């Protein structure tokens, strides 16, 4: 076997091997190091008895202390819920105006409303309420069909629009003028007048007359809209179904009318209030 020299300076033995003249001292480890190592082994055994440790074929050893990170999570969620109950009470008992005027409540309502919106409203209205093609309005602009005040938004969320489940759902019906009420030329004339009202193009006298007879009742004489009937403002720059003449003709002929579910019963009172505050805070609230 290799020769184990004793190093002259330290008196320690070498390992006995040599690599190109380089030798390695075999300095013994201290005994306390070994005892600490034994302690860690004992600790590991105790740990695996007390805590979940070993997988079995279909489960795992639970440990005598019955600890589980899932149970700890549930406890923390329960504690968090208890903390949130304080704010929940305050929001439930305050009016929308009061919430909007209290900076702390406002912050909490917006934060909660953002989550409610993302989980419930975003599928139709888009992330952060940018809107979606097909008639799902963007809620951040200042154009509202049914009103953009806090109360109006709250009512819209609570009862929905044109749904069959809520007795108080907002309801309005635009007649399908293309099905026997007006002929194609008349509709085209009206469309031209609508464009004129918005400042795009010349007026059409026939169209103006038909508009005054048929459309003004809901959309107003100058086409400014009516929040109570959900009749859009026809003179602004925001169009749900398209702003070129053909799109307008199409909408007059076979009008598309949006349906929104009623959230009363699906969301708690707190959540609806928070959602209303959030939508109002997006920048277009009145």
């Amino acid at each position: 076997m290799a020769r184990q020299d004793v190093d002259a300076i330290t008196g320690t033995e070498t390992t006995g091997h040599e690599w190109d003249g380089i030798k390695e001292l075999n300095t013994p480890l201290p005994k306390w190091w070994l005892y600490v190592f034994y302690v860690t082994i004992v600790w590991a055994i105790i740990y695996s008895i007390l805590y979940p440790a070993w997988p079995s074929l279909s489960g795992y050893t639970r440990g005598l202390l019955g600890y589980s990170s899932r149970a700890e999570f549930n406890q923390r969620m329960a504690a968090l819920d208890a903390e949130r109950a304080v704010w929940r009470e305050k929001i439930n008992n305050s009016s929308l105006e009061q919430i909007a005027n209290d900076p702390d409540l406002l912050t909490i309502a917006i934060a909660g409303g953002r989550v409610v919106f993302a989980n419930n409203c975003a599928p139709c209205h888009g992330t952060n309420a940018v809107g979606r093609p097909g008639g799902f309005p963007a809620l951040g602009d200042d154009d509202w069909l049914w009103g953009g005040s806090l109360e109006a938004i709250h009512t819209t969320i609570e009862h929905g629009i044109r749904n069959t489940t809520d007795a108080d759902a907002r309801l309005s019906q635009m007649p399908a003028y293309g099905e026997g009420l007006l002929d194609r030329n008349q509709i085209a004339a009206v469309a031209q007048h609508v464009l004129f009202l918005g400042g795009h193009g010349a007026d059409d006298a026939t169209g103006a007359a038909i508009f005054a007879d048929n459309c003004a009742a809901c959309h107003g004489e100058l086409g400014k809209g009516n929040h109570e009937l959900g009749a859009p403002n026809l003179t602004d720059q925001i169009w749900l179904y398209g702003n070129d003449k053909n799109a307008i003709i199409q909408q007059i002929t076979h009008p598309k009318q949006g349906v929104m579910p009623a959230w009363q019963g699906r969301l708690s009172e707190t959540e609806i209030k928070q959602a209303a505050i959030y939508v109002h805070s997006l920048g277009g609230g009145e």
Partner: protein
Amino acid sequence: MTSAEPSAPAIDASPAVPTLPTRRRPPPKAPTGGDGPAPGDTGRLYAEHIKVQPRSVQGFWRRIKWWVLTVLLGLYYLAPWLRWDRGPGAPDQALLVDMPGRRAYFFGIEIWPQEVYYLTGLLILGAIGLFLVTALFGRVWCGFTCPQTVWTDLFMWVERKIEGDRNARIRLDKGPLTFDKAWKKVTKHLAWLLIALATGGAWIMYFNDAPTVVREFFTGQASTAVYGFIGLFTMTTYVLAGWAREQVCIYMCPWPRFQGAMFDEDSFIVTYEEWRGEPRAPARKGEAVAAGKGDCVDCGMCWQVCPTGVDIRKGQQMACIGCALCVDACNSVMARFGRPPELITYDSINNQLARARGDSTRTRLLRVRTIAYVALLAVVASVMVFTLATRSRLEVNVLPDRQPLFVKLSDGSYRNGYTLKILNMARETKTFLLATEGLPGSEITVTGIQAQPSTSVELTVSPDDVGTFRVFVKAPPTSLAGERTDFHFVLTDLATRQMLNHATIFNGP
């Protein structure tokens, strides 16, 4: 380690054959040496712990060590009690790291988490300073200022006061368990635990208000974290300074292992003048040096006073922490024998070689290495001082909305949303005027503050706080340059009229 024994043979570590009737014991073998098995033995895997019982010593270096210990421990225990008034609602402790509040305080300087690089700078300064000192004076960190050394020194002093000096302690350990022995041991450990508790407590006081946490600790009101950390540091101080002692230096600490890279031949280190001391021979007081013998009388004082139990006569070794107590011990013996002092001395290797040859010596403190360290220190320190002196107490972050990028409004104009965060690092409420620049015709609304669009809005931020604002900027389509228009937010401090520009973008169709 540099093995600078030029012409001397390998040291013979066996004890000198006594020619005088003495009851001296042979020197115990230091833990790093002489403990190995004899050649041919299969060898023990693990070394027995040999308890080091240092003897007390008086002298110049011992006095220096006591001074350094007093100053350092005094600073450590008393600094948290210093007060500094920062105004109402702010902590009044001069040195404080406020973890929940995310602030660090050093007298008049307040550091936010974004400024943690000042701590990095301090650590770099500490490291370079340590390299410099070690290149100049050897292991002065280990021997004089290292917390392990300082607290072990203190604990050994307590042990000496209670159990007596080295010989008394050895006798006590070997003797039977009497009431006297038990009482001494218990008192010693209690004293150690008390000191350890004060040490752990002082640590906590750097992170909590000192008077408050002391009161809470003793009335049981402190948090679990406080009790936990005090318990942890008490235990580690007690175990490391009371029980482990030199085992930390020899086995646990990385610093001894790269000391070799820190010295050069001109660094001042604790050396034994082998050319003068060997061959060693015991002598009588007043006796002249016998012919062919060295100055070393093999009294054993040098290894008896060593806190790590090494024999410096074997030369530079990892376990020698450079505390220079052996210098004091040998000097006192040399004085008694009327021989020249500094047989063990603080000297450089070059000087030792020169002295051995009889040449003159020189002290070379200015070397490329030391000058480079000093230059680095100067550069880092001045960068830190400069950035600290010129740092702004106000910062603005603008986060433009990504969803939606822009909103078309009913009058045809476009609107972008931004989250504005104003970091007010001063200790007073600040009011700012927010306006835009580079976007003609634009108007601003801020949720909760300004509902009507306007060209400028007043924003108020509380002291030492971050103000978060939802800002909407509306711009006519004629001001936009396509999909992306660059413009600035301008923030004017109403009190100082200081203006802050922040570039941002306006997204369009």
